[in-house]
């Protein structure tokens, strides 16, 4: 175990949490991040579902972890090739940087769905169609406003944008968007109590602990209206509001309404690094995600000796699930390093 090293690709929650566990056990960890700072997608979030914890607390903890002298954090470095060389794993950034370690952990995570691909929803065309990530950015500033700076009187959230949609090639559920819509609807109602919030859904998938309770609270305390029906079309009105059409499937009637802001709950897609590095190592699964050896007890292993997986490079996961998965990957890696 002594002097053994691990290279972790991806400095998001999974990468940092795994680095923390490994470094605390005395291993040398190189944590490589393609952007300029650690944190991954959590950098875009203000509060976390379902308990409204501050994402900043999580980020502060990340910064603390990175102070560990056993962790070498390398930013602005995108790994373009990852391969096994004898008993070592080599990660390369183009041709200028090479990192060598005894084991490699892929924590390359996810990217949010590019909402422009759902053309009928007009993202990137109509100013008042925004994504859930844009909503967070606005929420960070303490104000939710339309492109014209107006406080919305009506807001609509649309679930399953880029998820459960054959048209964009994603049959799967992203798992986090439903509860995130509930969270954002409540945040909106707290900021603008007199406004109306509508949430359009195909199914409300409240599978996590306290999700259903939050959903219930959003109805009872905040009066959020849930409409079972997928918005089929968004168009701008003369005053730059957004006209949306859906079927109110519970009444079996077509419906339309005009809202000041339409928020698209963008789903989780595999990141380009996840897909590319998985492809290189023959661990590419469905939808560009990485494929683990199996779901039951060997979910952090791959068919490659010494290559491990953690977090959303495998599939959509919530933040607590990602942390747990990263820690379990650390256990597997330590087990492996004892054998070589």
């Amino acid at each position, binding site marked *: 175990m002594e002097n053994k090293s691990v290279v972790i690709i991806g400095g998001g929650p999974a990468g940092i949490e795994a680095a923390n566990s490994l470094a605390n056990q005395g291993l040398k960890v190189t944590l490589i991040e393609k952007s300029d700072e650690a944190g991954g997608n959590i950098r875009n979030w203000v509060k976390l579902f379902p308990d409204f914890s501050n994402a900043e607390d999580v980020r502060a903890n990340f910064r603390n972890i990175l102070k560990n002298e056993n962790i070498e954090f390398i930013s602005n470095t995108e790994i373009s090739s990852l391969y096994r060389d004898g008993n070592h794993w080599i990660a390369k950034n183009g041709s200028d940087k090479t990192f060598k370690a005894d084991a490699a952990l892929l924590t390359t995570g996810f990217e949010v769905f590019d909402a422009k691909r759902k053309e009928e929803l007009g993202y990137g065309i109509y100013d008042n169609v925004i994504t859930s990530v844009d909503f967070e950015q606005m929420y960070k500033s303490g104000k939710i406003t339309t492109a014209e700076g107006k406080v919305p009187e009506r807001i609509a959230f649309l679930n399953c944008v880029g998820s459960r949609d054959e048209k964009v090639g994603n049959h799967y559920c992203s798992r986090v968007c439903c509860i995130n819509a509930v969270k954002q609807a409540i945040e909106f109602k707290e900021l603008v109590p007199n406004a109306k919030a509508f949430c359009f859904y195909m199914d409300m998938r409240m599978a996590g602990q306290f999700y259903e309770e939050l959903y219930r609270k959003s*109805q*009872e305390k905040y*009066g959020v209206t849930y409409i*079972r029906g997928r918005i089929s079309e968004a168009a701008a009105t003369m005053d730059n509001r957004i006209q949306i059409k859906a079927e109110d499937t519970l*009444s079996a009637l077509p419906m*339309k*309404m005009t809202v000041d802001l339409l928020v698209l709950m963008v789903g989780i897609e595999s990141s380009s690094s996840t897909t590319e590095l998985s492809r290189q190592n023959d661990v590419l699964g469905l939808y560009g995600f990485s494929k683990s050896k199996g779901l039951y007890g060997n979910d952090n292993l791959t068919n490659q000796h010494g290559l491990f997986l953690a977090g959303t490079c495998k599939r959509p996961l919530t933040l607590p699930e990602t942390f747990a998965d990263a820690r379990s990957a650390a256990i597997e890696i330590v087990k492996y390093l004892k054998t070589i």
Partner: protein
Amino acid sequence: MKNWGFKISQPRILDFDTADLESYSRLVEKVPSAHRCLMCGACTATCSANVHTEFNFRNTHLMFRRGQFDGLADELDKCMLCGKCKLVCPRGVNTRAIIYNMRIVLSDMNYKSIEL
């Protein structure tokens, strides 16, 4: 005017811009649990009246929510107020109180059932 042999069809769309969505809040004031209704339909499945008439409590409640009040008073007359629906609601919605109070709010808005 000419006889065209047809008339311009009226839209059957629910227009949330013009529908009266506010009157529902008057119902919710009286029965706060109404907000929690998920439209699962357990109430309607167990309804004694539903077996013999077209009365559908879930849909009547939904139409009220959507501000579509025409004909609802007549629908509500089919309810026997037995309270069976309340027993099965997974969200603890006071369905019986909703029926009772929908009648009151409708009556206040001059939606009356057909007098026989």
